[in-house]
């Protein structure tokens, strides 16, 4: 079976062969599976969750602060809220923050970095100065500062992560564009009269895709952690259920003094797993986009 699969991989002339290769990365596929499961939970939280964590009537007062049981698989907190249900509802905020940040930041970084590297001159200098300045700004203190003025919302994480995250990406993209610019295929494109827009976005930028995929995943993973941290500090959306807020409640309601380990363990595990799976999916995407990691013929 494995031999046959390898044979298919070697001889296949079809484009999807590169996707077949991905099955040889079990960790990556597992991560993808976990992310899909989270997505399903986020969209169908109402159907999947055994209880409604937002509804005070669904609280099981008699079963408050109970460990895992058949009725409450991951236990309950001191209010009697089912922890599994809260976890399922908590996927929403985590995924919204992870995906929006993971898409906006690399886009911003790639476009600005590409422009900077391609055109050079004063534009390049101005952008790289902005990069140097923004890179030294600390993230969490700034988030607290903005949250003090703007109010409690997880969109602060998205906005500040995009603002603080693009410089690192654009610096990498710029370096890549600078080194590719001198390649003969660019000269060839120029000589047949291709528009600069086409050269930049059609010929040069694709060479940064593998890099962008990995960084996008890393940023998504970091933003999930940052959102959890901000919610933990009490700056999260007061109405939304988030994993960070669950841990904050566990802390303030004395889960550590009472030894309610399930209330601490599971939300943190969820954050860690989602953050990890974003990173592993990044490596998976790198394999899809990077022709150098692919074996055999391209098409």
């Amino acid at each position, binding site marked *: 079976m494995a031999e046959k699969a390898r044979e298919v991989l070697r001889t296949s002339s079809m484009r999807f062969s590169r996707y077949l290769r991905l099955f040889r990365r079990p960790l990556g596929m597992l991560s993808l599976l976990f992310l899909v499961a989270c997505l399903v939970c986020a969209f169908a939280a109402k159907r999947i969750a055994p209880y409604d964590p937002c509804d005070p009537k669904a609280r099981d007062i008699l079963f408050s602060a109970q460990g895992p049981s058949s009725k409450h698989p991951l236990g309950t907190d001191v209010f009697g809220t089912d922890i599994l249900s809260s976890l399922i509802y908590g996927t929403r905020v985590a995924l919204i923050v992870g995906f929006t940040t993971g898409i906006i930041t690399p886009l911003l970084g790639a476009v600005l970095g590409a422009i900077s590297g391609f055109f050079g001159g004063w534009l390049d200098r101005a952008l790289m100065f902005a990069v140097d300045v923004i890179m030294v700004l600390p993230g969490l*203190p700034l988030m*607290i*500062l903005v949250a003090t003025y703007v109010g409690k919302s997880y969109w602060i994480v998205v906005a500040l992560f995009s603002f603080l995250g693009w410089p690192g990406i654009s610096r990498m993209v710029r370096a890549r564009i600078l080194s590719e610019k001198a390649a003969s295929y660019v000269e060839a494109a120029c000589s047949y009269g291709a528009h600069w827009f086409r050269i930049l976005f059609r010929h040069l930028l694709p060479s940064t895709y593998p890099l962008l995929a990995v960084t996008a995943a890393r940023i998504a993973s970091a933003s999930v*952690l940052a959102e959890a941290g901000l919610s*933990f500090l*009490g700056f999260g959306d007061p109405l939304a259920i988030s994993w960070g807020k669950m841990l904050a409640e566990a802390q303030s309601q004395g889960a550590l003094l009472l030894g309610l380990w399930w209330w601490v363990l599971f939300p943190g595990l969820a954050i860690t797993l989602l953050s990890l799976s974003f990173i592993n999916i990044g490596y998976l995407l790198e394999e899809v986009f990077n022709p150098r990691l692919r074996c055999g013929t391209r098409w």
Partner: protein
Amino acid sequence: MQSSYFVRRIVLAFLAIWVALVLNFLLIHLMPGDPAERFYADPRVPPEAKEEIIKIFGLDKPLWQQFFLYARNVFLGRMGISFTTQRPVLEVLLERIPWTLAITFIPTLAAIACGIWLGLYAAWKRGTVFDFLLRTFGTAVNSIPSFWLAMILIMVFAYWAKIFPLMGMARPGVSLANAPWEFIKSVAYHAALPMLTLFVLSFPGYALVMRNAVISVLGENYILAAQAKGVSQTRLLWRHVLKNAVLPLISMFSLSIAGVFGGAVLVEQVFSWYGMGLLMVRASQARDFPLVQGAVLITILCTIIANFVADLVQGWVDPRIRYG
């Protein structure tokens, strides 16, 4: 050229500070509501202080004049009066900085030392189980929320094993004035878990950077030459390899400075360790605008200055950067 490198760095640091000031100032003035009110119109501020605050910050003058006054005041250390404590912001901040340094400084140094050693060893024993474990742990640790790890450590070491205290900074009633030695012992005892948390989270990062740097250095010709010359393994690693591989660690250290001054917010929150981070959070929850502004600004300034120093050190250590 050599001198132009330093000049460039100084200019960059000053411009960065300037940008930070502008951002901070804009944030006060762009938010809805009367910005002047954020300086004094809080019931907690005594009415007689209002006149003086208006005078010092020029709140009745045009905006651009206010900005220059603001910048001047910041450089003179006048950051306003904290609403909650009724004291100058700088005074409140300076009280908290030693506490933050107490739990961040030692773990950072230990993490670097440990990272250098582990990185060297992992690169030398590349492909072994040890190398694999270090790499796995190094990637996994980036995904562990620091506050969660802190909570787990409290659960294990304070709740179950009862080795360390649950939270707090020192035994009540013991202070530096009445029993200095007891006080230091008590603080160290309370600081152990926060320090352990920060150490566990930061050393794998240094180790991985070090490992990759060492691997690229090991491929150089001068290493081959040294080996051919018959240099012992210890001498090869600690003299020939280390010197060339330690450079990326310096720039990484400069990026982690932010954490040393203000980034331990989450860990401080878990342990109720009243340092800069917890101060920031509490000030924000109490809507003590001058104090939050001051705390964030101090963190940013420290970060910029530390980065500047790290750049200088890097330029001093590595001539390629100086002349490049």
